[in-house]
Protein backbone atom coordinates (compact mmCIF):
# COMPACT_ATOMS: atom_id res chain seq x y z
CA UNK A 1 0.00 0.00 0.00
CA UNK A 2 1.23 3.50 -0.79
CA UNK A 3 2.33 5.73 2.05
CA UNK A 4 3.24 9.29 2.90
CA UNK A 5 6.25 10.35 4.92
CA UNK A 6 5.62 13.57 6.79
CA UNK A 7 8.62 15.71 7.56
CA UNK A 8 9.52 19.25 8.58
CA UNK A 9 12.93 20.84 8.11
CA UNK A 10 14.32 17.47 7.11
CA UNK A 11 13.04 15.72 10.26
CA UNK A 12 10.78 12.78 9.59
CA UNK A 13 7.76 13.03 11.85
CA UNK A 14 5.42 10.33 10.75
CA UNK A 15 4.66 7.68 8.20
CA UNK A 16 1.06 7.40 7.07
CA UNK A 17 -0.25 4.43 5.12
CA UNK A 18 -2.90 5.37 2.55
CA UNK A 19 -5.29 2.63 3.58
CA UNK A 20 -8.49 4.62 3.18
CA UNK A 21 -10.24 5.69 0.03
CA UNK A 22 -10.15 9.30 1.28
CA UNK A 23 -7.33 10.58 3.47
CA UNK A 24 -7.92 14.15 4.54
CA UNK A 25 -5.19 16.62 5.46
CA UNK A 26 -5.78 19.78 7.49
CA UNK A 27 -5.37 21.72 10.70
CA UNK A 28 -8.62 20.64 12.34
CA UNK A 29 -8.50 17.53 14.54
CA UNK A 30 -11.01 15.50 12.51
CA UNK A 31 -8.58 15.18 9.61
CA UNK A 32 -6.84 11.88 8.98
CA UNK A 33 -3.56 13.73 8.85
CA UNK A 34 -3.71 16.66 11.25
CA UNK A 35 -1.03 19.33 10.88
CA UNK A 36 -1.42 21.85 13.63
CA UNK A 37 0.11 24.85 11.95
CA UNK A 38 -1.52 28.15 11.03
CA UNK A 39 -0.24 27.97 7.45
CA UNK A 40 -2.41 24.91 6.97
CA UNK A 41 -6.14 25.37 6.36
CA UNK A 42 -8.73 23.62 8.51
CA UNK A 43 -9.58 21.33 5.61
CA UNK A 44 -6.58 21.72 3.37
CA UNK A 45 -6.43 18.81 0.96
CA UNK A 46 -7.56 15.25 0.41
CA UNK A 47 -5.87 12.20 -1.09
CA UNK A 48 -8.22 9.87 -2.91
CA UNK A 49 -6.79 6.39 -3.28
CA UNK A 50 -8.20 3.98 -5.84
CA UNK A 51 -6.41 0.64 -5.59
CA UNK A 52 -2.81 1.43 -6.48
CA UNK A 53 -3.34 5.02 -7.66
CA UNK A 54 -3.60 8.08 -5.43
CA UNK A 55 -4.86 11.54 -6.36
CA UNK A 56 -4.19 14.69 -4.38
CA UNK A 57 -6.80 17.44 -4.41
CA UNK A 58 -6.56 20.85 -2.82
CA UNK A 59 -9.78 21.71 -1.00
CA UNK A 60 -9.60 25.43 -1.67
CA UNK A 61 -6.96 26.05 0.99
CA UNK A 62 -5.83 29.59 1.80
CA UNK A 63 -2.15 29.00 1.10
CA UNK A 64 -2.47 26.34 -1.56
CA UNK A 65 -0.83 22.94 -2.03
CA UNK A 66 2.47 22.46 -3.82
CA UNK A 67 3.76 19.27 -5.42
CA UNK A 68 7.44 19.24 -6.37
CA UNK A 69 7.45 23.03 -6.18
CA UNK A 70 4.37 23.62 -8.34
CA UNK A 71 1.00 24.75 -7.04
CA UNK A 72 -1.63 22.15 -7.89
CA UNK A 73 -5.39 21.95 -7.67
CA UNK A 74 -5.56 18.31 -8.54
CA UNK A 75 -2.62 15.97 -9.01
CA UNK A 76 -2.08 12.32 -9.86
CA UNK A 77 0.60 11.30 -7.36
CA UNK A 78 3.72 9.58 -8.65
CA UNK A 79 6.33 7.76 -6.61
CA UNK A 80 8.63 10.20 -4.72
CA UNK A 81 6.38 13.22 -5.27
CA UNK A 82 6.82 15.79 -2.48
CA UNK A 83 3.69 17.59 -1.32
CA UNK A 84 4.36 20.87 0.50
CA UNK A 85 1.96 22.45 2.97
CA UNK A 86 3.59 25.47 4.55
CA UNK A 87 6.78 24.22 6.18
CA UNK A 88 5.63 20.61 6.14
CA UNK A 89 6.54 18.12 3.48
CA UNK A 90 4.75 14.89 2.63
CA UNK A 91 6.67 12.48 0.46
CA UNK A 92 4.55 10.01 -1.51
CA UNK A 93 5.97 6.49 -1.78
CA UNK A 94 3.97 4.15 -4.02
CA UNK A 95 3.44 0.54 -3.13
CA UNK A 96 6.67 -1.40 -2.67
CA UNK A 97 6.84 -4.79 -4.33
CA UNK A 98 9.75 -6.87 -3.17
CA UNK A 99 11.22 -8.95 -5.97
CA UNK A 100 10.66 -8.71 -9.68
CA UNK A 101 8.75 -11.99 -9.80
CA UNK A 102 6.10 -10.59 -7.55
CA UNK A 103 5.96 -7.42 -9.61
CA UNK A 104 5.29 -9.51 -12.69
CA UNK A 105 2.51 -11.35 -10.92
CA UNK A 106 1.00 -8.08 -9.88
CA UNK A 107 0.77 -6.90 -13.44
CA UNK A 108 -1.25 -9.88 -14.54
CA UNK A 109 -4.57 -8.82 -15.89
CA UNK A 110 -7.29 -9.22 -13.32
CA UNK A 111 -11.02 -8.77 -13.45
CA UNK A 112 -12.41 -5.98 -11.36
CA UNK A 113 -15.84 -6.99 -10.20
CA UNK A 114 -18.48 -4.50 -9.18
CA UNK A 115 -18.32 -4.13 -5.41
CA UNK A 116 -14.67 -5.09 -5.15
CA UNK A 117 -13.77 -1.50 -4.51
CA UNK A 118 -16.20 -1.15 -1.65
CA UNK A 119 -14.41 -3.75 0.45
CA UNK A 120 -13.80 -2.48 3.96
CA UNK A 121 -10.29 -1.10 4.27
CA UNK A 122 -7.74 -3.26 5.99
CA UNK A 123 -7.57 -2.82 9.75
CA UNK A 124 -5.12 -0.11 10.61
CA UNK A 125 -1.88 -0.96 12.35
CA UNK A 126 -2.37 -0.97 16.13
CA UNK A 127 0.18 1.79 16.62
CA UNK A 128 -2.15 4.39 15.11
CA UNK A 129 -5.41 2.89 16.30
CA UNK A 130 -5.75 5.02 19.43
CA UNK A 131 -4.77 8.58 18.64
CA UNK A 132 -6.33 10.45 15.71
CA UNK A 133 -4.64 9.04 12.68
CA UNK A 134 -1.60 11.00 11.69
CA UNK A 135 -1.76 13.66 14.35
CA UNK A 136 1.39 15.72 14.37
CA UNK A 137 2.89 17.42 17.35
CA UNK A 138 3.73 20.96 16.27
CA UNK A 139 7.00 20.84 18.23
CA UNK A 140 8.67 17.51 17.55
CA UNK A 141 11.11 16.28 20.18
CA UNK A 142 14.77 16.77 19.33
CA UNK A 143 16.95 13.85 18.38
CA UNK A 144 14.79 10.76 18.59
CA UNK A 145 12.54 11.38 15.57
CA UNK A 146 15.58 12.07 13.46
CA UNK A 147 17.26 8.74 14.12
CA UNK A 148 13.92 7.08 13.62
CA UNK A 149 13.48 9.04 10.46
CA UNK A 150 16.75 7.88 8.99
CA UNK A 151 15.63 4.29 9.17
CA UNK A 152 12.34 5.16 7.58
CA UNK A 153 13.96 6.88 4.68
CA UNK A 154 16.43 4.03 4.38
CA UNK A 155 13.59 1.56 4.17
CA UNK A 156 11.71 3.68 1.73
CA UNK A 157 14.52 3.86 -0.78
CA UNK A 158 14.12 0.42 -2.38
CA UNK A 159 10.46 1.20 -2.95
CA UNK A 160 11.47 3.74 -5.51
CA UNK A 161 13.53 1.18 -7.36
CA UNK A 162 10.58 -1.00 -8.38
CA UNK A 163 7.60 1.15 -9.24
CA UNK A 164 4.63 -1.10 -9.85
CA UNK A 165 3.81 0.29 -13.23
CA UNK A 166 6.65 2.25 -14.64
CA UNK A 167 6.12 3.47 -18.18
CA UNK A 168 7.93 1.33 -20.74
CA UNK A 169 11.57 1.55 -19.86
CA UNK A 170 13.37 3.87 -22.21
CA UNK A 171 15.98 2.06 -24.23
CA UNK A 172 19.39 2.12 -22.62
CA UNK A 173 21.45 5.07 -23.76
CA UNK A 174 22.85 3.96 -27.04
CA UNK A 175 25.30 5.17 -29.55
CA UNK A 176 24.00 7.59 -32.13
CA UNK A 177 24.09 6.29 -35.64
CA UNK A 178 24.09 8.06 -39.00
CA UNK A 179 23.51 7.28 -42.64
CA UNK A 180 25.41 9.04 -45.39
CA UNK A 181 24.42 8.89 -49.04
CA UNK A 182 27.37 7.80 -51.16
CA UNK A 183 25.80 8.02 -54.62
CA UNK A 184 23.02 9.81 -56.48
CA UNK A 185 22.12 13.48 -56.66
CA UNK A 186 22.27 14.01 -52.92
CA UNK A 187 25.61 12.26 -52.40
CA UNK A 188 27.31 13.37 -49.21
CA UNK A 189 24.05 14.11 -47.40
CA UNK A 190 23.85 12.76 -43.85
CA UNK A 191 20.89 11.70 -41.74
CA UNK A 192 20.76 10.63 -38.12
CA UNK A 193 18.80 7.47 -37.24
CA UNK A 194 16.68 8.89 -34.45
CA UNK A 195 13.48 6.89 -34.87
CA UNK A 196 12.90 3.28 -33.80
CA UNK A 197 12.21 2.53 -37.46
CA UNK A 198 13.64 4.16 -40.55
CA UNK A 199 12.59 3.01 -44.00
CA UNK A 200 14.86 3.23 -47.03
CA UNK A 201 14.10 2.81 -50.72
CA UNK A 202 11.13 3.32 -52.99
CA UNK A 203 7.70 1.94 -52.01
CA UNK A 204 6.55 -0.63 -54.55
CA UNK A 205 10.08 -1.13 -55.89
CA UNK A 206 12.42 -1.97 -53.06
CA UNK A 207 12.10 -1.09 -49.40
CA UNK A 208 14.22 -1.98 -46.38
CA UNK A 209 13.87 -0.87 -42.80
CA UNK A 210 16.53 -0.05 -40.23
CA UNK A 211 15.34 -0.79 -36.70
CA UNK A 212 16.93 0.62 -33.58
CA UNK A 213 17.02 -1.97 -30.82
CA UNK A 214 18.76 -2.15 -27.44
CA UNK A 215 21.36 -4.45 -29.02
CA UNK A 216 22.13 -2.07 -31.88
CA UNK A 217 20.86 -1.34 -35.38
CA UNK A 218 19.44 -3.92 -37.76
CA UNK A 219 18.39 -3.85 -41.39
CA UNK A 220 15.51 -5.98 -42.71
CA UNK A 221 14.15 -6.46 -46.20
CA UNK A 222 10.51 -5.29 -46.45
CA UNK A 223 9.41 -5.48 -50.09
CA UNK A 224 10.71 -5.81 -53.61
CA UNK A 225 12.18 -8.65 -55.66
CA UNK A 226 15.77 -7.78 -54.73
CA UNK A 227 17.18 -7.72 -51.25
CA UNK A 228 19.52 -4.95 -50.17
CA UNK A 229 23.24 -5.72 -50.14
CA UNK A 230 25.62 -5.02 -47.28
CA UNK A 231 29.22 -4.52 -48.44
CA UNK A 232 28.22 -6.21 -51.71
CA UNK A 233 26.50 -9.30 -50.20
CA UNK A 234 22.67 -9.57 -50.32
CA UNK A 235 21.16 -9.98 -46.85
CA UNK A 236 19.07 -13.00 -45.88
CA UNK A 237 15.38 -12.82 -45.00
CA UNK A 238 16.09 -12.20 -41.31
CA UNK A 239 17.19 -8.97 -39.71
CA UNK A 240 20.86 -8.24 -40.32
CA UNK A 241 22.95 -6.50 -37.66
CA UNK A 242 24.69 -3.38 -38.94
CA UNK A 243 28.33 -2.72 -38.15
CA UNK A 244 30.16 0.57 -38.19
CA UNK A 245 30.95 1.70 -41.76
CA UNK A 246 28.81 -0.93 -43.47
CA UNK A 247 27.81 0.10 -46.99
CA UNK A 248 24.16 -0.60 -47.81
CA UNK A 249 23.00 -0.68 -51.43
CA UNK A 250 19.36 -0.75 -52.43
CA UNK A 251 17.28 0.56 -55.31
CA UNK A 252 20.52 1.64 -56.96
CA UNK A 253 21.60 3.91 -54.12
CA UNK A 254 24.57 3.39 -51.82
CA UNK A 255 24.51 4.57 -48.22
CA UNK A 256 27.04 4.17 -45.47
CA UNK A 257 26.04 3.34 -41.91
CA UNK A 258 28.30 4.64 -39.16
CA UNK A 259 28.26 5.43 -35.47
CA UNK A 260 28.66 9.03 -34.50
CA UNK A 261 31.68 9.63 -32.33
Amino acid at each position, binding site marked *: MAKLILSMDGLVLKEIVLSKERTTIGRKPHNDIQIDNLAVSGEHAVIVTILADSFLEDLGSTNGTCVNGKTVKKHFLQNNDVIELGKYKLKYISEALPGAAKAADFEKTMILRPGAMRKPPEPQPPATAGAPHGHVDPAPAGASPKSHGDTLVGMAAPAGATPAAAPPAPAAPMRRAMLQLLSGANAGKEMELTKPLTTLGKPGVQVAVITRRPQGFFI*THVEGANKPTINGTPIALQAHALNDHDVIELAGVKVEFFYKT
Partner: protein
Amino acid sequence: MDLSQALEVASHTDPGMVREHNEDSIASIAEKGLVVLADGMGGYNAGEVASGMATTVITTELRQLLDNKAPHEVDPQSGQKAALKMLQEQVTKANTSIYQASQSQPQYAGMGTTLVIALFYDNKMMVAHIGDSRLYRLRGDEFSQVTKDHSLLQEQVDAGMLTKEQAKHSANKNLVTRALGIDPAVEAEIHEYDAQPGDIYLLCSDGLSDMVGDDDIGMALQALGANLNLAAQQLVQMANDNGGRDNVSVILIKILREYPARQGLASKIFGWFR
Protein backbone atom coordinates in the same frame (compact mmCIF):
# COMPACT_ATOMS: atom_id res chain seq x y z
CA MET B 1 -17.87 -16.17 -50.18
CA ASP B 2 -14.10 -16.53 -50.05
CA LEU B 3 -12.42 -13.42 -48.71
CA SER B 4 -8.84 -14.68 -48.82
CA GLN B 5 -8.24 -12.69 -52.04
CA ALA B 6 -9.45 -9.47 -50.46
CA LEU B 7 -7.82 -9.76 -47.05
CA GLU B 8 -4.22 -10.41 -46.11
CA VAL B 9 -3.80 -11.71 -42.58
CA ALA B 10 -0.61 -12.04 -40.53
CA SER B 11 -0.23 -12.83 -36.86
CA HIS B 12 2.40 -13.42 -34.22
CA THR B 13 2.25 -14.35 -30.55
CA ASP B 14 5.04 -14.53 -28.02
CA PRO B 15 5.22 -15.21 -24.26
CA GLY B 16 7.32 -12.05 -23.78
CA MET B 17 10.49 -11.67 -21.75
CA VAL B 18 9.15 -12.33 -18.24
CA ARG B 19 6.32 -14.86 -18.33
CA GLU B 20 6.82 -18.56 -18.86
CA HIS B 21 3.33 -19.27 -20.13
CA ASN B 22 1.62 -17.70 -23.06
CA GLU B 23 -1.93 -17.06 -21.92
CA ASP B 24 -2.85 -15.30 -25.16
CA SER B 25 -4.61 -17.19 -27.89
CA ILE B 26 -5.16 -16.15 -31.50
CA ALA B 27 -7.06 -17.68 -34.42
CA SER B 28 -8.03 -16.61 -37.89
CA ILE B 29 -9.95 -17.93 -40.90
CA ALA B 30 -8.97 -15.62 -43.75
CA GLU B 31 -11.46 -17.02 -46.28
CA LYS B 32 -14.33 -16.32 -43.88
CA GLY B 33 -12.95 -12.92 -42.90
CA LEU B 34 -12.74 -13.88 -39.25
CA VAL B 35 -10.00 -13.09 -36.72
CA VAL B 36 -10.13 -13.70 -32.96
CA LEU B 37 -7.70 -12.73 -30.19
CA ALA B 38 -8.05 -13.56 -26.49
CA ASP B 39 -5.85 -12.77 -23.48
CA GLY B 40 -6.54 -15.23 -20.67
CA MET B 41 -6.24 -14.76 -16.94
CA GLY B 42 -6.27 -17.15 -14.00
CA GLY B 43 -3.87 -19.21 -11.95
CA TYR B 44 -1.39 -21.79 -13.29
CA ASN B 45 -2.46 -22.63 -16.83
CA ALA B 46 -6.11 -21.62 -16.39
CA GLY B 47 -5.56 -18.42 -18.38
CA GLU B 48 -4.39 -20.41 -21.38
CA VAL B 49 -7.35 -22.74 -21.04
CA ALA B 50 -9.82 -19.84 -20.97
CA SER B 51 -8.34 -17.98 -23.94
CA GLY B 52 -7.94 -21.23 -25.88
CA MET B 53 -11.55 -22.18 -25.26
CA ALA B 54 -12.72 -18.75 -26.39
CA THR B 55 -10.87 -18.80 -29.71
CA THR B 56 -11.72 -22.46 -30.43
CA VAL B 57 -15.42 -22.20 -29.64
CA ILE B 58 -15.82 -18.99 -31.61
CA THR B 59 -13.90 -20.02 -34.72
CA THR B 60 -15.41 -23.51 -35.02
CA GLU B 61 -18.96 -22.34 -34.44
CA LEU B 62 -18.70 -19.28 -36.66
CA ARG B 63 -17.12 -21.28 -39.48
CA GLN B 64 -20.22 -23.47 -39.61
CA LEU B 65 -22.64 -20.59 -39.24
CA LEU B 66 -20.95 -18.60 -42.01
CA ASP B 67 -21.21 -21.61 -44.32
CA ASN B 68 -24.97 -21.53 -43.95
CA LYS B 69 -25.77 -17.86 -43.71
CA ALA B 70 -24.35 -14.66 -45.15
CA PRO B 71 -23.39 -12.21 -42.41
CA HIS B 72 -24.67 -9.15 -44.30
CA GLU B 73 -28.24 -10.46 -44.59
CA VAL B 74 -30.71 -8.40 -42.63
CA ASP B 75 -33.18 -10.20 -40.45
CA PRO B 76 -36.64 -8.90 -41.43
CA GLN B 77 -37.94 -9.12 -37.87
CA SER B 78 -35.17 -7.44 -35.90
CA GLY B 79 -33.87 -5.29 -38.77
CA GLN B 80 -30.33 -6.26 -37.76
CA LYS B 81 -27.60 -7.96 -39.71
CA ALA B 82 -27.05 -11.67 -39.26
CA ALA B 83 -23.46 -10.95 -38.22
CA LEU B 84 -24.61 -9.21 -35.05
CA LYS B 85 -26.68 -12.14 -33.89
CA MET B 86 -23.90 -14.60 -34.79
CA LEU B 87 -21.34 -12.72 -32.75
CA GLN B 88 -23.67 -12.22 -29.80
CA GLU B 89 -24.59 -15.90 -29.72
CA GLN B 90 -21.03 -17.15 -30.04
CA VAL B 91 -19.75 -14.83 -27.33
CA THR B 92 -22.51 -16.14 -25.07
CA LYS B 93 -21.63 -19.72 -25.95
CA ALA B 94 -17.93 -19.20 -25.25
CA ASN B 95 -18.78 -17.43 -22.01
CA THR B 96 -20.95 -20.32 -20.86
CA SER B 97 -18.31 -22.92 -21.73
CA ILE B 98 -15.59 -21.12 -19.82
CA TYR B 99 -17.84 -20.29 -16.89
CA GLN B 100 -19.03 -23.88 -16.55
CA ALA B 101 -15.49 -25.25 -16.73
CA SER B 102 -14.38 -22.82 -14.05
CA GLN B 103 -17.31 -23.80 -11.84
CA SER B 104 -16.88 -27.55 -12.24
CA GLN B 105 -13.09 -27.86 -12.05
CA PRO B 106 -11.31 -26.38 -9.06
CA GLN B 107 -8.03 -25.78 -10.92
CA TYR B 108 -9.87 -23.50 -13.34
CA ALA B 109 -11.78 -21.52 -10.70
CA GLY B 110 -11.94 -17.83 -11.52
CA MET B 111 -10.42 -18.12 -14.98
CA GLY B 112 -11.49 -15.70 -17.66
CA THR B 113 -10.30 -13.98 -20.80
CA THR B 114 -10.50 -10.78 -22.76
CA LEU B 115 -11.72 -11.05 -26.31
CA VAL B 116 -11.65 -9.14 -29.55
CA ILE B 117 -13.28 -10.47 -32.72
CA ALA B 118 -13.33 -8.85 -36.15
CA LEU B 119 -15.61 -10.21 -38.86
CA PHE B 120 -15.23 -8.83 -42.38
CA TYR B 121 -18.08 -8.94 -44.92
CA ASP B 122 -19.60 -6.72 -47.62
CA ASN B 123 -16.95 -3.96 -47.37
CA LYS B 124 -17.68 -3.77 -43.67
CA MET B 125 -16.13 -4.95 -40.45
CA MET B 126 -18.02 -5.90 -37.31
CA VAL B 127 -16.00 -5.78 -34.11
CA ALA B 128 -16.96 -7.41 -30.82
CA HIS B 129 -14.79 -6.90 -27.78
CA ILE B 130 -14.66 -7.53 -24.05
CA GLY B 131 -11.89 -6.28 -21.77
CA ASP B 132 -8.64 -4.53 -22.68
CA SER B 133 -7.54 -6.27 -25.86
CA ARG B 134 -7.74 -3.73 -28.66
CA LEU B 135 -8.39 -3.13 -32.30
CA TYR B 136 -6.59 -0.29 -34.06
CA ARG B 137 -6.92 1.02 -37.60
CA LEU B 138 -4.36 2.55 -39.91
CA ARG B 139 -6.09 4.44 -42.72
CA GLY B 140 -3.76 6.58 -44.80
CA ASP B 141 -1.66 8.49 -42.29
CA GLU B 142 -4.17 8.19 -39.50
CA PHE B 143 -3.60 5.57 -36.84
CA SER B 144 -6.38 5.32 -34.28
CA GLN B 145 -7.76 3.04 -31.62
CA VAL B 146 -11.16 1.69 -32.61
CA THR B 147 -12.21 -0.21 -29.49
CA LYS B 148 -12.48 1.35 -26.07
CA ASP B 149 -11.11 -0.78 -23.21
CA HIS B 150 -13.39 -2.14 -20.55
CA SER B 151 -10.95 -1.25 -17.80
CA LEU B 152 -10.82 0.77 -14.63
CA LEU B 153 -8.30 3.08 -16.26
CA GLN B 154 -10.58 3.82 -19.22
CA GLU B 155 -13.45 4.54 -16.83
CA GLN B 156 -11.22 6.96 -14.94
CA VAL B 157 -10.23 8.67 -18.18
CA ASP B 158 -13.90 8.89 -19.20
CA ALA B 159 -14.80 10.35 -15.82
CA GLY B 160 -12.13 13.03 -16.30
CA MET B 161 -10.06 11.84 -13.34
CA LEU B 162 -7.06 11.16 -15.53
CA THR B 163 -5.83 12.49 -18.82
CA LYS B 164 -4.68 10.02 -21.45
CA GLU B 165 -1.13 11.08 -20.74
CA GLN B 166 -1.48 10.41 -17.00
CA ALA B 167 -3.14 7.08 -17.70
CA LYS B 168 0.14 5.83 -19.16
CA HIS B 169 1.70 6.11 -15.70
CA SER B 170 -1.14 4.55 -13.75
CA ALA B 171 -0.48 1.51 -11.59
CA ASN B 172 -3.98 0.18 -12.28
CA LYS B 173 -3.35 -0.85 -15.88
CA ASN B 174 -4.16 -4.48 -15.27
CA LEU B 175 -7.74 -4.20 -14.06
CA VAL B 176 -10.47 -5.03 -16.54
CA THR B 177 -14.09 -4.36 -15.74
CA ARG B 178 -15.51 -6.93 -18.15
CA ALA B 179 -14.23 -10.40 -19.07
CA LEU B 180 -15.42 -13.57 -20.72
CA GLY B 181 -16.14 -16.57 -18.46
CA ILE B 182 -16.18 -14.79 -15.10
CA ASP B 183 -19.94 -14.43 -14.69
CA PRO B 184 -22.88 -16.51 -15.99
CA ALA B 185 -23.67 -13.79 -18.52
CA VAL B 186 -21.59 -11.18 -20.32
CA GLU B 187 -22.30 -8.60 -22.97
CA ALA B 188 -19.80 -7.90 -25.70
CA GLU B 189 -19.55 -4.42 -27.14
CA ILE B 190 -20.31 -4.77 -30.85
CA HIS B 191 -20.05 -2.12 -33.56
CA GLU B 192 -19.93 -2.13 -37.35
CA TYR B 193 -17.45 -0.06 -39.36
CA ASP B 194 -16.75 0.62 -43.04
CA ALA B 195 -13.56 -0.94 -44.32
CA GLN B 196 -11.63 0.54 -47.25
CA PRO B 197 -8.95 -0.93 -49.49
CA GLY B 198 -5.56 -0.02 -48.02
CA ASP B 199 -6.77 -0.09 -44.43
CA ILE B 200 -4.63 -2.08 -41.99
CA TYR B 201 -6.30 -3.36 -38.85
CA LEU B 202 -4.40 -4.46 -35.77
CA LEU B 203 -5.80 -6.66 -33.03
CA CYS B 204 -3.51 -6.87 -30.01
CA SER B 205 -3.31 -7.92 -26.39
CA ASP B 206 -2.32 -5.42 -23.69
CA GLY B 207 1.20 -6.89 -23.83
CA LEU B 208 1.69 -4.70 -26.91
CA SER B 209 -0.34 -1.61 -26.05
CA ASP B 210 1.14 -1.36 -22.52
CA MET B 211 4.74 -1.70 -23.70
CA VAL B 212 4.75 0.27 -26.97
CA GLY B 213 3.27 3.72 -27.44
CA ASP B 214 0.51 4.21 -30.01
CA ASP B 215 2.78 6.51 -32.04
CA ASP B 216 5.43 3.82 -32.38
CA ILE B 217 2.86 1.16 -33.25
CA GLY B 218 1.43 3.42 -35.94
CA MET B 219 4.90 4.18 -37.27
CA ALA B 220 5.76 0.49 -37.53
CA LEU B 221 2.55 -0.25 -39.43
CA GLN B 222 3.13 2.64 -41.79
CA ALA B 223 6.74 1.68 -42.44
CA LEU B 224 6.18 -2.06 -42.75
CA GLY B 225 2.62 -2.22 -44.09
CA ALA B 226 3.95 -3.64 -47.37
CA ASN B 227 5.21 -6.72 -45.53
CA LEU B 228 2.53 -7.72 -43.04
CA ASN B 229 4.42 -10.69 -41.56
CA LEU B 230 7.44 -8.54 -40.88
CA ALA B 231 5.22 -5.86 -39.33
CA ALA B 232 3.67 -8.42 -36.95
CA GLN B 233 7.11 -9.64 -35.90
CA GLN B 234 8.41 -6.11 -35.55
CA LEU B 235 5.56 -5.14 -33.19
CA VAL B 236 6.23 -8.14 -30.93
CA GLN B 237 9.94 -7.37 -31.01
CA MET B 238 9.32 -3.74 -30.02
CA ALA B 239 7.25 -4.89 -27.02
CA ASN B 240 10.01 -7.30 -25.99
CA ASP B 241 12.75 -4.70 -26.49
CA ASN B 242 10.82 -2.42 -24.13
CA GLY B 243 10.78 -5.11 -21.43
CA GLY B 244 8.16 -7.58 -22.66
CA ARG B 245 6.52 -7.85 -19.25
CA ASP B 246 3.42 -9.62 -20.60
CA ASN B 247 2.49 -12.02 -23.37
CA VAL B 248 2.35 -10.18 -26.68
CA SER B 249 -0.04 -11.08 -29.50
CA VAL B 250 -0.88 -9.28 -32.70
CA ILE B 251 -3.10 -10.01 -35.68
CA LEU B 252 -2.84 -7.74 -38.71
CA ILE B 253 -5.42 -7.56 -41.49
CA LYS B 254 -4.83 -5.58 -44.65
CA ILE B 255 -7.73 -4.83 -47.00
CA LEU B 256 -6.35 -5.58 -50.46
CA ARG B 257 -9.48 -4.80 -52.47
CA GLU B 258 -13.18 -4.22 -52.09
CA TYR B 259 -15.24 -7.23 -51.09
CA PRO B 260 -18.91 -6.45 -51.68
CA ALA B 261 -21.32 -9.22 -50.77
CA ARG B 262 -22.73 -11.24 -53.63
CA GLN B 263 -26.20 -10.23 -54.67
CA GLY B 264 -29.08 -12.49 -53.72
CA LEU B 265 -30.33 -15.01 -56.26
CA ALA B 266 -33.43 -12.98 -57.21
CA SER B 267 -31.56 -9.81 -58.02
CA LYS B 268 -28.96 -11.83 -59.90
CA ILE B 269 -31.62 -13.23 -62.21
CA PHE B 270 -33.14 -9.80 -62.49
CA GLY B 271 -29.73 -8.46 -63.50
CA TRP B 272 -29.52 -11.13 -66.23
CA PHE B 273 -32.64 -9.95 -67.94
CA ARG B 274 -31.90 -6.29 -67.82
